[in-house]
């Protein structure tokens, strides 16, 4: 079965979401810049959002749904709002960290381990 030859289906969305998630995780793990890590987080969140929307969409379901089924979309909206709040918080932390240490290298932020 060649997925590229198939009509667009739920699986395709999930694959794109998984790619986005893995990209985000890799970005979080690899970047030393706090802003880069933040971007990775955004990628992870949006990968997850894509899954929510895909599972919630009535057009992608094989059987006719009983309800209009906007649960997934609603969760996605929540995630977007939370991501906005999280981004505000994280940027504020980064700013403060920079004020204190004159850098935003997350590897430098290990003073709490002792």
């Amino acid at each position, binding site marked *: 079965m060649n997925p590229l030859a198939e009509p667009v289906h739920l699986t395709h969305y999930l694959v794109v979401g998984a790619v986005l998630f893995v990209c985000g*995780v890799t970005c*979080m*793990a*690899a*970047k*030393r810049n706090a802003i880069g*890590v933040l971007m990775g987080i955004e990628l992870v969140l949006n990968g997850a959002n894509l899954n929510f929307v895909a599972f919630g969409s009535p057009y992608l379901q094989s059987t006719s749904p009983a309800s209009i089924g906007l649960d997934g979309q609603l969760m996605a909206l929540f995630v977007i709002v939370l991501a906005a709040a999280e981004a505000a918080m994280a940027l504020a932390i980064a700013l403060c960290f920079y004020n204190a240490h004159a850098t935003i290298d*997350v*590897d430098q*932020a*290990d*003073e*709490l*381990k002792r």
Partner: protein
Amino acid sequence: MDLELLLPLLLGLAWLVPLGSFAAIVFFGPRMGRAGRGAGYLAIGAIGASAVLSIVALIAWLLAHPLGGDHGSHHAVHAVAGDWYPLAVFGDLKITIGYYIDGLTVAMFAMVSVVALCIHVYSLGYMHEELHEVTDPLVTLSDGQPLKRRGRFHRFFQYLSLFSFSMLGLVIAGNVAMVFVFWELVGICSYLLIGFYIERKSASNAANKAFIVNRVGDFGMIVGMMALWSGLGTFSFDEIFARVRPAANGHALVVPDGMVRAAASERIAAIYRTTPTGPGGAFPGLQNAAEARIAALLPGWRAEGLGYGLLLVAGLGIFCGCVGKSAQFPLHVWLPDAMEGPTPVSALIHAATMVAAGVYLVGRFYPVFTPEALLVIAIVGCVTLLIAATIALTATDIKRVLAYSTVSQLGYMMLALGVGGWVAGLFHLFTHAFFKALLFLGSGSVIHATGTNEMPRMGGLLKKMPWTAGTMLVGCLAISGAGIPLVIGLSGYYSKDGILAQLYSFAGRNPSHAWLFYAAAAGAALTAFYMFRLWFMTFLGLPRDEHVHAHAHESPRVMVVPLVILAVFAVVAGWNVPGTALGLQPLLEQARPLGTAEGASHGHFLPTLAMPAEHLSHAHEIHVPVTLIAFTVGLAGFLLASAMYWWRLLDADLIGRTFWPLYEFLRNKWWFDELYQFLFVRPVLRCAALAAAIDRAVIDGAAHALAAAVRLFSRFDDWIDRLFVDGAVNATANVTYEVGLRLREVQTGQLRQYVLWVAAGTVGLFVLAMFLWTYTLAG
């Protein structure tokens, strides 16, 4: 108001008021007025209230029971008996706070409270030194300085109040158990008061001696109480009297059924054996039959004398207590030593009230005494009177002379009671209370003025202390029985004549015991001799110690007034109100216990012994010679004393040297103290030392060994604890700590590392789930 209600109320109040004063002084004494002076006024107010109530009760009594008329006949005894409060019931044994009020009780209340009132007032003056800080020159501290202590004015009056309460309680008591309680309370009060100057070794020793010697007598009293209880099943006076002298028998002495049954217990058991009553008395008819047989046999057993011994033991046991309290031979040794207390105490306790309690109790228990017991009482009294009188001849301490005189006069009372002179003995108790209290207070006044007890250092005080000398002279005359024979006399004249007349009557009936009369007559001569010796040595002649004489002064009015009041009583106590039969003697005659008017005779063990009826001694042929004899011997004693100590015709020292063995014998008080020291005190001390040694060596040793073993064991336990228990706990803690340290290494602080771990963990979980979960779901 009904007398049955009025008398218990009045006398009960009179009894309890001093208790209230005692309680108030206990709690607030030191804060009453300046240095506790208010305590004295409170105590005087309390005893004054008692005196007023007692006198009101006496008047009420006399209004309800007029004296005279039924003189000596078989009149009914008027007594108000009952219970205020039941304390406890043990089976048949009832312990109550009750009262038994008859003429004797009422008269005793009046006498005790009036004498106590005089002594309280006197103490206000005598004890004034206790208001400030006291320097006691008789007590030397280890640094050679005399003892300085705070004044104890309030405490003295606190004890006086407690004592008044106890004495009145003893008099009003309605049963033997209550008598015993107050008996002991009186004892503890005397202990506290004798030991008032507790820092003085001699005072604390004297207090101990008084207390311990009294315990010896109390032991006998408890035996007597047990005998009474086992035979009669009751402690209450009116029930005891009703059973010992039943009305059905004309109030003659009868061994009560209970005592006969107690003595015949084996025969009763045999009757029950031969008359089976079934298990647990299942056949009441047969049990009644057995009881009927016993009842039929009881008179025969009684005639055999069964139970008589128990009655004798009861009487002698009670008398034992009285021997201790009234300082009779052989327990008389405590009273002279008890003079260590302040003089008002001597007057209150050792003259007028406490020692009189023993005589009072003999009088109260009179219906219970068998003729044999009475003879014992008479002999003990007679021996006491002679011993004490002879010791008083040579004593030089003014208070000791009076102490031995007291013992001797108590002997007179016991002797009179013992030979059937119930009224004579108790009459002497009353008159003696007045003049002996007077003499003691007078001697206290002298001691207060001169600061010494020793008569050889006094002399010539008549001019300095006219009031004291005059009142004491009245006391000396009264105790010697002075009077114009057959016409009139001081109180002692009547009471002593009553005793001697009864003795004369007794001697006429029992010639083998006639010596009692001669001894008592000799005692009368001795009494006059030692009393006037005291008076002459103290007040007449030249001052023997200029220093003492220069310091002497008449006592303050607060001390003189009680002396005068008591002197008046010492004169008039024996008189009837002119033209009437109103007087102490008729009152006592009225109070005479039922069945004792005809004397006592027909004892089981001494059938020939007979105590003659007392009214026989009033007969002319007895009364006149006895009065003359008493007057003659008293005059002889007086003249001898005058010749030796007033006119100086005879040299007392020379006589002492001439008869030196006798003189030494008397001066050493018959060596009684040494004898008791040798017989009792030293063996007891040696036993105590032995016991202490055993205690130290054996019991302490065992205790110490046990302690050492426990210590050893606990050390071992300590080791176990440290090694194993602590070890386990510490090991757990160490392991936890180490693991924590290792695990801390994971916490690197590297954010990217954490993310990697999260990702790897997630992937790992997925991989795990792929292998496990699918099967689970499929399964």
